[in-house]
């Protein structure tokens, strides 16, 4: 049995650590690239969204490398995501790969379901071993996200553009290679320190833009054409509330106990959207209402034909809390220069608004 997983941002690093610690046979398919996308687009149903296409591309590439047990998230009451695995399995079979897709339920049972799935895959390794491996994976996730948060702050105000991005790329590699808690801690300390030493323009007051929208396109830079880095280049500080580590922490440990980090967002969205509509639609509306005061603008990312985000996009203009929103729909047709032009125009608009506010 050889395990394969699809990509989402840097999620492969903690997964790799987890599998290594459990001594499992696994492959990590190449990180998302043009070939992944082409494969995914070629074998996907026409109207599918970009997360489906990219993950399908990953699964095909994993199957090419000999993976026969593929992990995919699934569940009920989310969006199309719950149906992905059914279709992807049929595509793989029709391509002649005899791979089985193992569904990891993300909507029910959460932590227990995940741990049980890991136990099954690891040929009944002891619980102690599973939990220790799982913890180590989580530690890597936390390190990566803490460094990324620091990078988001440095990016818009660094003197030499691109320094923070370079450091982040190195940090990702170093985190991947760290194989015990001690070296992991060293990596974290080391890179946070290096980031704090980056020469910066202290007088700058960068525009603050929140990135909201659908989970996958938010966390997978390949699908949104590095929108965060591009905004950084334009001197904009990016704030994002969804991080993989936060999400894991809440959805696996705290949500079952009744603590929900999204309650604030839901409450804020209440006057405009009263109920959960699947995906991240509710949170997107809430984010706009909640942050209208403290952000300069929002970039709303959504896959083309994403149902929850379309509802959110329809509702957002009607909120009393007013803040400019730029919706970028991501799919294989999204072009870099087109997106850049829109981002530049958006940033110009935000600058004008800020100047007008200061004058008043």
């Amino acid at each position: 049995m050889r395990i394969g997983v699809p990509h989402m941002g840097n999620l492969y690093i903690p997964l790799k650590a987890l599998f290594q610690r459990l001594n499992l046979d696994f492959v990590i398919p190449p990180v998302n690239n043009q070939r992944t996308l082409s494969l995914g687009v070629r074998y996907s149903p026409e109207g599918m969204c970009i997360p489906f296409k990219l993950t399908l591309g990953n699964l095909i590439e994993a199957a090419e490398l000999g993976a026969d047990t593929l992990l995919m998230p699934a569940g009920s009451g989310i969006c199309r995501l719950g149906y992905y695995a059914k279709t992807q399995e049929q595509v793989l079979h029709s391509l002649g790969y005899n791979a089985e897709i193992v569904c990891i339920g993300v909507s029910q049972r959460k932590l227990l379901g995940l741990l049980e799935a890991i136990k099954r895959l690891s040929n009944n390794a002891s619980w102690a071993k599973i939990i220790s491996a799982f913890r180590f994976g989580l530690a890597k996730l936390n390190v990566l996200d803490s460094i990324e948060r620091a990078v988001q702050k440095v990016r818009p105000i660094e003197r030499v553009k691109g320094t923070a991005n370079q450091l982040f790329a190195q940090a990702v590699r170093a985190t991947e290679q760290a194989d015990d808690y001690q070296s992991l801690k060293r990596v974290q300390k080391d890179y946070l320190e290096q980031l704090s030493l980056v020469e910066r323009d202290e007088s700058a007051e960068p525009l603050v833009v929140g990135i909201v929208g659908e989970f996958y396109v938010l966390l997978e830079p390949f699908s949104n054409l590095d929108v965060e880095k591009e905004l950084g280049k334009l001197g904009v500080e990016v704030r994002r509330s969804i991080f993989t580590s936060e999400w894991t922490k809440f959805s696996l440990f705290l949500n079952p106990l009744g603590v929900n980090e999204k309650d604030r967002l839901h409450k804020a969205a209440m006057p405009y959207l009263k109920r959960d509509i699947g995906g991240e639609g509710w949170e997107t509306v809430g984010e706009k209402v909640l942050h209208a005061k403290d952000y300069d603008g929002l970039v709303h990312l959504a896959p083309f034909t994403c149902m929850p985000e379309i509802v959110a996009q329809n509702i957002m203009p009607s909120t009393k809390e007013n803040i400019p929103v730029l919706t970028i729909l991501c799919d294989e047709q999204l072009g870099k220069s087109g997106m850049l032009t829109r981002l530049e125009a958006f940033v110009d608009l935000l600058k004008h608004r800020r100047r007008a506010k200061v004058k008043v």
Partner: protein
Amino acid sequence: MVKVGIPRALLYYQYYPMWKTFFEGLGAEVVVSPPTTQATLAVGSSRVVADTCLPVKVFCGHVLALVEKCDYVFIPALRSVKSKIYNCSKFLGLPDMTRAVIPECPPILDIDIDINKGKRKLYQAIYSLGRNLSWNPLQVRKAALAAWHAHQEYKELMINKGLTPPQAIARISEAATPSPNPKQAAIALIGHPYLLYDELINHRLTHRLEQAGYRVLTPEMLTDEQLETAITRLTGKPYWTYEEEVVGSGGHYLESGVEGVIGVVAFGCGPDSLMMDMVQRQAIRLRTTPFMSLTLEEHTAEAGVVTRLEAFLDMIQRRKRREAKVCV
């Protein structure tokens, strides 16, 4: 008398007799928006963002047609009618979305239908809906029961008599409709009712097939067991609320000996992009019944639909002729 408006779109085709009975039982007058026209579609599309799917655009057009014609508009948020099976986001957010894009809309009567929260919650939702029109809980109960019976009667009409929803609605309001001849060669139309029975969106597909001499079969004519067996065969456990209409009926009709199956999809429909694909894969695997999928959106031209339909029917004819020759 209080007037309750019901837009002639989306869930109308599935539940109209039920809703009508309920509101009339509470002493309200029910106003239905007129059938879709090009103008309905145009005003509807002007309100929502471009990526919104065709049926929702049509829905907004119908709500606009009801503005100033009624005191309330009834828009339920139908989350789930079977355990652990949920509906598309656009249905869940429908009342909120309508309120956002059509601010001049009369007060919206919304109700959350979610079977997963338990019977108690469902009954409470029905009562709170009824309370808008009547103070008397017993009257609400009576109206709800009558509505449920009306719904059963409506479903039976379609299953036993082979009527399409518009025909059944006409039958209930006592206009005589000709009963279809069961011996005629049949073509199955699969897809959501709001696409199959909206004559403007689908460019009179049913009518065209009937003119070509075929009997038209639709998902509503199948029993729940038939639909469930077909779904189990194709995908296992259903995932979407209206999976029966597509995967269930598609799976059934592909093996029922009809001349052909036509799948009708709206462009950008999330659930259908996956469900119709399932049916298509099954059709390719079986290789017994011709299958065509028709994608509709506001730019779909009538001539395009007609051409594809003619080609499809020609192909069926040719196939039949060839088979006949082999037999001789």
